[in-house]
């Protein structure tokens, strides 16, 4: 039987009675997860992001409406939960990035052997050749002399 034991973590936050703040370690909570979670709170809270130290992000949430102690605790708990969800999303996204690129390329590009990145690079190469600043594509012989 597979072991699905969950890891128990502690997340410390502080509050001054008007806002809550977290200082998060990027090694545990990737930046995209921190930002992603914070973004989902912009309708309810003013979000402030700062970098107090290397690899640390401080997230401060100040409710847009009056909030009591219980309200702030709820806000902190909801942010922490969303942070965990965002970590899962980031890790699943990283793990499946190549798979997604493959089936998206198959879905939208006629040349099934070409990835989207390859197609973009080929397009850029083509554009550079079109510019032809050295006039490589210009025939050496002048037709008017022929």
């Amino acid at each position, binding site marked *: *039987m*597979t*072991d*699905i*034991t*969950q*890891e*128990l*973590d*502690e*997340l*410390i*936050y*502080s*509050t*001054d*009675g008007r806002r809550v703040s977290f200082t998060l370690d990027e090694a545990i909570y990737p930046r995209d997860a921190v*930002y*992603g979670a914070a*973004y*989902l*709170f*912009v*309708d*309810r809270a003013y979000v402030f992001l700062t970098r107090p130290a290397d690899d640390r992000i401080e997230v401060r949430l100040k409710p847009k409406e009056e909030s009591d102690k219980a309200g702030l*605790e709820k806000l*902190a*708990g909801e942010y*922490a939960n969303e942070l*965990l*969800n*965002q*970590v*899962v*999303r980031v*890790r*699943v*996204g*990283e*793990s*499946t990035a190549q*798979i*997604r690129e*493959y*089936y*998206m390329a*198959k*879905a*939208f590009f006629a040349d099934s052997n070409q990835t989207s990145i390859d197609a973009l690079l080929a397009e850029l190469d083509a554009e550079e050749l079109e510019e032809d600043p050295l006039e490589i594509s210009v025939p050496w012989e002048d037709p008017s002399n022929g």
Partner: protein
Amino acid sequence: MIETRTLQLTTPKLAAEKLGFFRYGFIADKVLLTNDAAEWHLLTPADFELFLSGGLEAGHPEFDALNAKGFVRSGMNLMDLAQKVRRKRYYVDYGPHLHVMITTLRCNQGCKYCHASRTDMDSVGTDMSPEIVKKGVEQAFQSTSPYICFEYTGGEPTVNMDAIKLSVEYSRELNKKYGKVVDHSVVTNMSWMTVENAEWLIANGVLVCTSLDGPEELHNWNRTWVKSEQNFPSGVNVQEASAYQQVLHWISYFNRRYIETGKDGGLWHVDALMTTTRKTLSQYKELVDLYVSLGIRNIKIRPLNPYGFATKTWRVIGYSMEEYLDFYGKVLDYVLELNAKGVQIQEGTAAIFLKKMLTPDDPNYVDIRNPLGAGTGQVAYNFDGRIFTSDEGRMLAGMGNDFLQIGELGKTSYRDMIGHPTVKALVMSSLLDGLPACHTCWNMPYCGVRPDNNYMECGDLFGQRPNTPKCKEHMGISRMLFERIAADTDGKIMAVFRRWTINRPRDEEPVASSHADAK
């Protein structure tokens, strides 16, 4: 004083290498998984944790379904996923199919929520000229879409009936060369209708869609007459007429004549649209009952849009998105209750989402699409020849801002029109795969954002999703649908929902409402 506290977090064990790509959300005590192919699956929280840990393996009751839908890595069929994604987003292969023609701005009604910039009945300078009509038809046929729908709107479009007739006849002539599937649809308040015009519309297969906001008092309160000395062409005195009675009279006339002229009444009938104002919120039963009594099988609940007169009257007729969703939920449940009794009626917005959720296809509804259809799925030709990304674009222009203009008939080629920087900006700002919050949202496969609305409400095309009403609206409606699916233990709700996804061309969401305007 600063206090420090500690939260105990339970971090789920994650075996990402065993999983396919998925998004997830929490709905009705379940966890909803969705993916790029718009597949979805509901798990209990315990099974979700097992799934995340990689422990939900062959032999588990949920495994086969998760495997077939591409949520687990071991049996993943990449070509199958690619084909599903392709089928869901087939519309990116084609140019605009919806071509809105604003035949006039003249209108005899002054609706409290009017999104268009109507003019008085004597402003004949806002009629579309025959030259502009022909140029519009020619431009539309340049689209790479094999299907073209001309939608006539205004103002009251039938006030310039000659423009509608010319467009229908000229497009019929041009189509001998192009061989496209062509529909015509007129969105009318019925007040300027005559027997002669009605017979012409029936004989020429022009679909008719009208506005019906609810019971008589509500409809007439929303849609008042503009003071005028003119009587209706039918001879009815404007000051004595009821807008509601006009609509009912002509719905009845058209539906009767469709049958009498040998058309299939199941496919040919007048479609009606409603716009929700504050007064509507308490009358959801009366509204639905009215539609049922008229034999209308599709009621599409629509909120107000931030355009035109609605921006000025919001204080009187507006409401919060939370109030709207509460109203919407009541309508949905009442419609489901009627379905359980054998009444055939569907809620139109739900039907759009359900087609995305329950079928391998997409209804290509231009306003709930990824990317949005403005400029790529629809264009609008104003009476004066200016081309806009959508009907909303010309409504914005009517408010003095031509930000969404992408050309001018006779001067701008088709390629320049759809390749316009504004069209590209709208695509970029509505491509959900790359938008913050959308790209990780469980509702992303079924959703669509509105950069034009964002521009009106937030001042930029992107907006902030949690702050935009459309995000709340679409997420709220999808959540209601999945909640009802999750609670459906005997399959009865799902049977109704599946019926709503059956493609009955004249019963489903009317083509004329393929954008969210209201005249």
